[in-house]
């Protein structure tokens, strides 16, 4: 069953009976999609490479919990330096608030690991195996068959494989790569707690990126809920130009605004909202609707930017 049309009175991805309509957001192409993809791949490369880079004989980031030594880019901190965490945490909190006041949810769309891995790793795998949004929805509604089973097994195996890689690299931040290698080479029972952590963490990643997805941003993440307290009229957010767009109408309609009611912005939205209804809690600022609308406007030889950062 497809998701209902977005409405501000309910969350698109939660039905009245509490069940979850799974979204099949359409592909986007354009300026923001390209820049965001390159940027995100850089971020992923950064994340995956940090444990491999040696500075002063230690990995660039090595939070050695067992020895209570925290190596950060050549700086080594001990347990008694924990008081510095006060400045780190308040500094991070303040930075997040400050950046939010100026640039809205730039973090969510461009830097949050959840979005980065979801949009640029897991959704890419899904896209490669199951095809575009329409094919994915049809495959989801199709009755069980050999081909569907094969695709499902293939896709979920890749999900689990990628999750395991991310989890192992994450563990490397805390025990260093050589130690991860030692533990991976040994039997699971030899490093039981590390193995359990790894299995559980891989499972959480797999569940989160394979199924949970936008629910994390909408229901769990507190940052989204705080938005109304953090932004004001001058914050940079993605919005729909209502003055230019309304009233909606097909090309050639007398008195119609720029919006042709093609609903492309709704089809590409990964959280299932209609951005034309204004800024909403669900919006993670992923810019998909900007590229989708710009694409349509360009084809109609109208100036782009009906939906834009403003």
């Amino acid at each position, binding site marked *: 069953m497809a998701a209902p049309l977005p*409405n*501000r*009175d*309910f969350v698109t991805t*939660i039905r*009245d*009976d*509490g*069940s*979850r309509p799974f979204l099949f957001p359409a592909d986007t192409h354009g300026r923001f999609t390209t820049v965001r993809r390159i940027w995100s791949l850089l971020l992923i490369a950064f994340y995956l490479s940090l444990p491999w880079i040696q500075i002063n004989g230690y990995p660039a980031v090595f939070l050695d919990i067992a020895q209570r030594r925290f190596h950060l880019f050549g700086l080594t901190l001990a347990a008694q330096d924990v008081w510095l965490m006060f400045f780190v945490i308040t500094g991070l909190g303040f930075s997040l608030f400050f950046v939010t006041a100026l640039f809205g949810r730039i973090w969510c769309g461009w830097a949050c690991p959840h979005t980065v891995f979801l949009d640029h790793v897991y959704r890419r795998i899904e896209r490669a195996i199951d095809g575009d949004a329409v094919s994915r929805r049809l495959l989801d509604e199709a009755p069980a068959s050999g081909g569907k089973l094969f695709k499902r097994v293939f896709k979920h195996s890749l999900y689990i494989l990628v999750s395991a890689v991310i989890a192992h690299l994450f563990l490397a931040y805390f025990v260093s790569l050589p130690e991860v290698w030692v533990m991976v080479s040994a039997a699971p029972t030899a490093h039981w707690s590390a193995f359990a952590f790894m299995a559980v963490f891989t499972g959480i990643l797999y569940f989160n990126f394979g199924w*949970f997805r936008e*629910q994390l941003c909408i*229901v769990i993440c507190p940052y989204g809920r705080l938005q109304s307290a953090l932004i004001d009229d001058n914050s940079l957010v993605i919005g729909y130009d209502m003055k230019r767009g*309304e*009233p*909606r*109408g*097909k090309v050639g*309609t*007398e*008195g*119609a605004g720029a919006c042709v*009611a093609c609903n492309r912005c709704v089809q590409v939205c990964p959280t299932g909202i209609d951005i034309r*209804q204004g800024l909403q809690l669900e919006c993670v600022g992923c810019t998909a609707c900007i590229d989708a609308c710009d694409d349509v406007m360009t084809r109609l030889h109208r100036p782009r930017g009906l939906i834009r950062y403003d």
Partner: protein
Amino acid sequence: MTPTPKPPLPDENEPLRPHSFDGIQEYDKRLPNWWLMTLFGAVVFWAGYWFYYERAHIGHTNAQIVEQQLAVIEATRLANAPTVDDASLWKMSRNPVFVDAGRASFETTCVSCHTKELTGAIGPNLVDHLWIHGGRPTEIYTTVTQGVLAKGMPPWGPVLGPKKISEAVAYILSYHQEGEPIEVQAAWVPPPPK
């Protein structure tokens, strides 16, 4: 021309939460099913957790884990002490790591003569207050190390080494209290075989 969709008017039948702040009210919607599943799952987990830690005491509390680790540290320290004296042997006898290791040695080496209950058979009783070759910890240690060949006690020093002997003596001492009376016994008379 499609008219601009207006936000739907509030549905009279849609249940609202009773509270109202600055005139803002919220709908009383059903929680997501996955959310309810985590709640029920947490309740089930709590039951298992409560049984494991609070009821059956299968899992160790943090205090017990710390105590175990401190015992391991002290055991290492005592085992590496340059000499053994009465005080250190008494300390060993109160350390569970040491006593457990000593029990293992005792039950493979000593039980044939002194019995599993240490009450003695061929060799003398080790849990009463009567001692033939001295009841102070260092005296017991010397007796075990050098043996009393005339009475059939072999010298265990070359066989077990000082660490295992310390452990075994600690195990024997774990049946005693520091400062309890030590009486001298002339000779051990084995009890009649049952």
